[in-house]
């Protein structure tokens, strides 16, 4: 029956975390190249560079959020932390940029660890706790910046971060790629990866089999906070300014990237590399829309549509509904043949 083959293909797409973002990525590239035709606005060095720039901003954040989602938790606070980290880095890093970056990462780590401890020790839901964290982070950012956009006087730093190495990479994208590489290797080779997957798949079983659930969850939230802060600090340095409300919305694209990378909110699926692929899809989309001269809202519509499609494809009742529709059709067909 061709239906069952189609079904198995569909199941493969649903359950292979690497394959899905890869196929969507190829689809995006082919689509943009086709729309662009022979003008080579899309297949160009400029597009590659701007893809890598969005990748550099988004990849660390999506990785942190993705690991939290892998463990069946969620971290809303990154939306506020991104702006807060930028403010901290710019305010403390005028003379010594590295010190500012370190301060920002320390703040991010502290925010993440505190939230993790509250979630684990008080057995609370991560959405509610990190919502508080989001509001508090934005609040602190508004207070320390006096509700204004802060300029960063150290323009050398901005120039350095804007330089292209080997004509393609910036320091920010090298940092992002290095983080992805290190985390992927650690995830694959050490116990930590298996433990996170175990926590996300079946928490009771993870507790029973001796997985250090509390420590790992606190670590995951700390990691998410630190990475978000790193990205926020670097973005503020490279733009030579910081805004308490964040220079761009990161929560939606980060969640979208993780979900595109095969991470489901029901936990246990997805890998660091597949999250990176998800980020790459979004970055290509953003750069491509710019390159072919489409208005920016096309990017939003495309991301929203892809997300909705993924959410529907991941719906636990999807198969049941298919079967229901199929059996209803069968029933109608039978009735007709009886007549």
């Amino acid at each position, binding site marked *: 029956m061709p239906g069952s083959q189609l079904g198995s293909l569909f199941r493969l797409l649903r359950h292979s975390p690497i394959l899905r973002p890869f196929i969507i990525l190829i689809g995006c590239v082919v689509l943009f190249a086709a729309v662009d035709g022979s003008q080579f606005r899309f297949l160009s060095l400029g597009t590659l560079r701007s893809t890598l720039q969005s990748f550099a901003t988004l990849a660390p954040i999506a990785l942190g959020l993705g690991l939290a989602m892998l463990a069946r938790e969620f971290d809303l606070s990154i939306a506020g932390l991104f702006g807060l980290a930028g403010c901290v880095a710019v305010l403390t890093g005028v003379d010594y940029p590295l010190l500012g970056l370190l301060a920002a990462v320390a703040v991010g780590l502290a925010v993440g660890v505190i939230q993790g401890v509250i979630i684990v020790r008080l057995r609370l839901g991560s959405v509610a706790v990190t919502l508080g964290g989001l509001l508090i982070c934005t*609040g602190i950012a508004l207070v320390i910046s006096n509700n204004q956009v802060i300029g960063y006087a150290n323009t050398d730093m901005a120039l350095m971060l804007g330089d292209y190495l080997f004509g393609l990479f910036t320091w920010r994208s090298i940092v992002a790629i290095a983080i992805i590489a290190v985390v992927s290797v650690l995830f694959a080779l050490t116990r930590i990866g298996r433990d996170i997957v175990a926590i996300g798949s079946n928490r009771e079983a993870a507790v029973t089999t001796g997985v250090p659930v509390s420590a790992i969850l606190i670590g995951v939230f700390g990691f998410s906070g630190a990475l978000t802060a790193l990205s926020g600090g670097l973005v503020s340095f490279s733009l030579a300014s910081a805004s308490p409300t964040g220079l761009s919305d990161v929560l939606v694209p980060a969640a979208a990237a993780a979900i595109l990378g095969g991470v489901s909110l029901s936990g246990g699926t997805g890998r660091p590399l597949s999250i990176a692929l998800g980020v790459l899809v979004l970055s290509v989309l953003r750069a491509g829309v710019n390159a072919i001269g489409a208005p920016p809202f096309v990017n939003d519509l495309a991301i929203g549509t892809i997300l909705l499609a993924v*959410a529907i494809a991941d719906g636990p009742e999807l198969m049941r509904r298919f079967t229901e529709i199929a059996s209803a059709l069968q029933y109608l067909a039978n009735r007709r043949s009886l007549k």
Partner: protein
Amino acid sequence: MNRRLSVLPLGSFQMPALNTVVLLRVLAVAGMAVLIALSPGFFSAPTMLSLVTTISFVGVVAVGMTLITVSGNIMSFSLGATTAASALTFVAVLNVAGLAAGIIAGLLVGALTCGVQGFFIGWLRANPIIVSIAGLTVITGAASGLTNNAMLYADEATGYEALRGKVFGIPAEFLVMIAVIVMAELMLRFTLFGRNLLMTGASYRVAEAAGVARTTTVFVAYALAGALAGLAGIMLAVRYGSASMEYGIGYDYNAIAAVLVGGTAIQGGQGSAIRTFIGLVIITLVQTLLLLHGFGTEWQQLITGIVVLGVVMLQTPLGR
């Protein structure tokens, strides 16, 4: 309940009847009362009027958010964008086809955008967080494509300003919010739909066993939430005589903050519109006190965050 986003790592719980919790609540209320008494100018007419108007917009959205939270779907990220999109629709249709058409169009756009999300969430059990993030992105994209991020101004010849009035000195917005709260509360407590909604939120499987039409229930809850966000958008547009996507910023987070501070549990199955109202009043009182004592608006968000986190922490299942 494995499929739900892990709101609770282990087991489930009810609101604790903890003595410390009760004690803390009494202390918080007493402390606030003392602070209010010590704040000259708190009960002055301008303060009260501006307070009452500003909370009305968030209040109506928060009642809609309560329905979503109670239905077991945590929160919607798209209610703020829905509010703004409805405001834009209202103004656009108002200028062309008049007041009644504008109101109907505004409410419909809200109900439809959220209803579609509710359909997928109810019918396929698609994840509510992802679906609402997708909804937010699509609404923002469509709105900026259609309006070019411009602000729309309402035409005064349509007579919409008549809605801006006061009844016995009370702003019309506040009366609308009170009516919405009362109707939502009655619906949750005394109607079949309300009972179904609470049961679906408490346990999806039990609701299935009890023969509750869960798809319809979740769909209606979202459509109502969207219509309420639309109502808030219309109220905003009437008050300011204009609309833009900026108007919706923060409404989703402020609404869920009110829901949580009111004591509605985020995992669903229980909660009420009146609780959400109380949560909203608490947040607003704290913010107003801060303003009166010379703290700038930048402190408001920080204090709201601390209040939300504090209330959430009091909901711990430990020590029961």
